[in-house]
């Protein structure tokens, strides 16, 4: 059947209307929200602006940022990584045990574990050809089981090992170390996306996978790299959490699935993939950290916070989802 409609060289009135809406991007809304929430909290609670509180926000926010940046890769390429919770939990217990046995080598091995798990996710996607949300749901469950197998109960670090934990915990030049780590990861990932071919290709694959395939892009490779980075970031988060708690716990990662997705989505990165970037994730993370902190200070129930997160994901996706890409919403 023939495609009858033809287009003219002139933009139609319809696209004029869209241009205005395009200029107000979700990230502007998030920043606005941050300002509003921040001001509201500052007014509502005198403790909010204390150094201690701000420091807490930044330290914990940095951890969420790393997780969200990893999740961003899975989402940019058009998928999602629901296994990050499992990886974080697994690494958190692994780290405590490994540090005791092999000292500083625990760092690279834990990181490698995260990369490997991410690679496995990528493999399942490409070889077994299952959509990422089911595949990572499944692998997430398996990895969480592994975490429990390694240590069914919370693990405390041995006193002798404290030195290793203090590599990440504490401050350096007056700034919390987790913040520095978060900053470093942020910059590295920004550079990766900006300056490397793979970074750019991840956007292309997320934006139009068919076109990318027809243009010769190595989809499997880019996918593997995206999920490896997600796994790697999850591993870093596991190490960070272990270090500041001086112990590991197989339940510790579960809340990060939701919050990492929320941070990415609320910041304006569409689940359809191919748009958004580190700044979006940063603003989303900042907003969530503020909200989290604010609610804790006010005394809101933790589970209610989760409910709120769920609500925001729905809202965030409703606003950013590119419906022209998939006319059928499943």
């Amino acid at each position, binding site marked *: *059947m023939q495609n009858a409609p033809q287009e003219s060289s002139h933009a139609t009135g319809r696209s004029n209307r869209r241009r205005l809406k395009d200029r107000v991007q979700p990230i502007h809304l998030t920043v606005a929200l941050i300002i509003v929430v921040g001001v509201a909290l500052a007014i509502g609670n005198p403790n909010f602006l204390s150094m201690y509180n701000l420091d807490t926000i930044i330290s914990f926010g940095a951890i969420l940022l790393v997780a969200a940046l990893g999740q961003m890769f899975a989402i940019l390429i058009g998928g999602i990584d629901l296994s990050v919770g499992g990886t974080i939990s697994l690494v958190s217990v692994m780290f405590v045990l490994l540090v005791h046995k092999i000292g500083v080598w625990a760092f690279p091995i834990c990181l490698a574990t995260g990369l490997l798990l991410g690679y496995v996710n990528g493999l399942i996607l490409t070889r077994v050809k299952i959509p990422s949300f089911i595949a990572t749901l499944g692998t997430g469950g398996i990895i969480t089981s592994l975490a429990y197998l390694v240590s069914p109960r919370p693990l405390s670090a041995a006193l002798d090992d404290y030195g290793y934990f203090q590599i990440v915990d504490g401050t350096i030049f007056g700034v919390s170390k987790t913040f520095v780590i978060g900053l470093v990861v942020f910059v590295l990932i920004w550079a990766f996306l900006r300056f490397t071919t793979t970074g750019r290709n991840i956007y292309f694959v997320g*934006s*139009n996978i068919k076109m990318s395939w027809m243009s010769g892009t190595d989809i499997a490779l880019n996918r593997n790299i995206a999920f490896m980075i997600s796994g790697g970031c999850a591993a870093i988060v596991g190490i960070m959490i272990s270090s500041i708690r001086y112990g590991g716990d197989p339940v510790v990662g579960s809340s990060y699935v939701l919050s990492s997705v929320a941070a990415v989505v609320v910041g304006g990165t569409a689940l359809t993939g191919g*748009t958004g970037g580190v700044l979006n994730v940063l603003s989303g993370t900042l907003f969530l950290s503020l909200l989290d902190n604010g609610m804790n200070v006010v005394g809101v129930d933790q589970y209610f916070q989760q409910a709120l997160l769920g609500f925001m994901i729905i809202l965030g996706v409703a606003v950013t989802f*590119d419906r022209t890409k998939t006319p059928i919403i499943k």
Partner: protein
Amino acid sequence: MTTTDTNTDSVVLSMRGITRRFPGVTALNNVEIDVRKNEILGLLGENGAGKSVLTKIMIGIHQPDEGHITLDGQEIAPKGTIEAIKKGIGAVFQEGSLIPNLSVTENLFLCHEQGFLRHGLLSKRQMASEARRLMAIMKLSLDIDQPVSMLSPAAKQMVEIARVLWLSEKYGATNPIVILDEPTTVLNDGERETLFSILKDLKTRASIIFISHRLQEVLENCDRIVVLKDGENVTQMPAAGLQVADVEQLLVGHEFSGDRFRENEQAAPGDKVVLKIDRMSKAGAFEPLSFSVREGEIVSLIGLVGSGKEELCRCITGLEKYSSGSLTINDRSPQIGSARAAVLSGIGHVPVERREEGLALNMSVADNINHLVLDKLKKGGVINGGMEKDHARRWVAECLVKTPSINAACSGLSGGNQQKIILSKWLSSDVRLLILDHPTRGIDIGAKDEVYRLIRKFAKSGIAMIIMCDTLEEDIGLANRLLVMRDRQLVAELDAPPGRKPGPQDLIKLII
């Protein structure tokens, strides 16, 4: 328009003055057509002549901008297929409108099952017996409970025709009209014979509009024919006594002014062979064929839908696997069935679906243009923003892309500009052979000319091209050489040097 038959007693559907415009083009212009009771009417026309728009107007998918439709003496204006089917007008398209996992019975009555409800539940027995009755009318014997996905294309068509008939009956349409869009392309000889004998039976209960490009079978089986060309009705006449040659004359022959396809810029190809296809075949798609393409040569692949040319292109670009033979590009033989291997060997593809397959719409003009050459825009191992901008600007200027900025998203640009961006992408890469699939479809005259200019320019720089165009004139005008495919075989190779080009009439004989 010539009408050599003025008997209007038994007209069921009458369309007068039908005009339909789309942005930039008039698809139908003052078309007049009559459908009579108990006849098989053949609807003929090239691609783009307006057949599908006319059909869609009949079944209510489009509404005419001007003109009237009269059914059984009453004026109608169906808005949607459901309204049309209730009036008795239904179409059976090539792609098929059957839900694959549902059974034959369920598909026959989908959304109209009210009559089968007993105590709120569907009566399987009633549905089955009604389905069997319909199958008997269509002279089909098959298992009505099996999912439709298991049926042959021929059987599926029959089921769809049965559905149209049943719905017309149900809603009391006295003179149903069944439109069949290219029904014979997917049938083998035996099935075709059966189809025609069923249609002859069906004539007694319905009027049939038969759309096909196979002139011979149309003339043999239709009572009257209508020929469309460039959105206008060229003729309505009885089929009796007509020869294929008579009709061919009516189908083609557009008036073009001037050097529309920049033939004076056509250059002779170089000597080096870029692409060599040796006895390549694909089971069920095309028989073994061989040809080669030289540097800077533009080869046009012509043939009807079903001739095998689309599958051939897909095999060359690595989108599909071929069953035997070989493909060599610049002495390399890329892996079969891998688009990536093809691209790495220097084969590029400008697809027909620009938006779905050609561009990353939400990404910028610059990003899309630079997609294939990012590795070259690096300094010190990292992508250099300045080099990116320069590269993009150069190509935007080169190809006359109209865009507010190189950072604008591609989604906001017109079709013509989007196409130029896709061309820039490939032409700035190492491509040695570019496959262009209907490169000027859906873009206006001005942009078409710019595309031709680019095609000529890059042919001169040594890039070989294989093109498939929307009209025979375009194919002939652009090509150095024409490859004709018919019924899955390569049947002819013709030279088309500027000034001594073959005419469309010569080619139509070979295609059909």
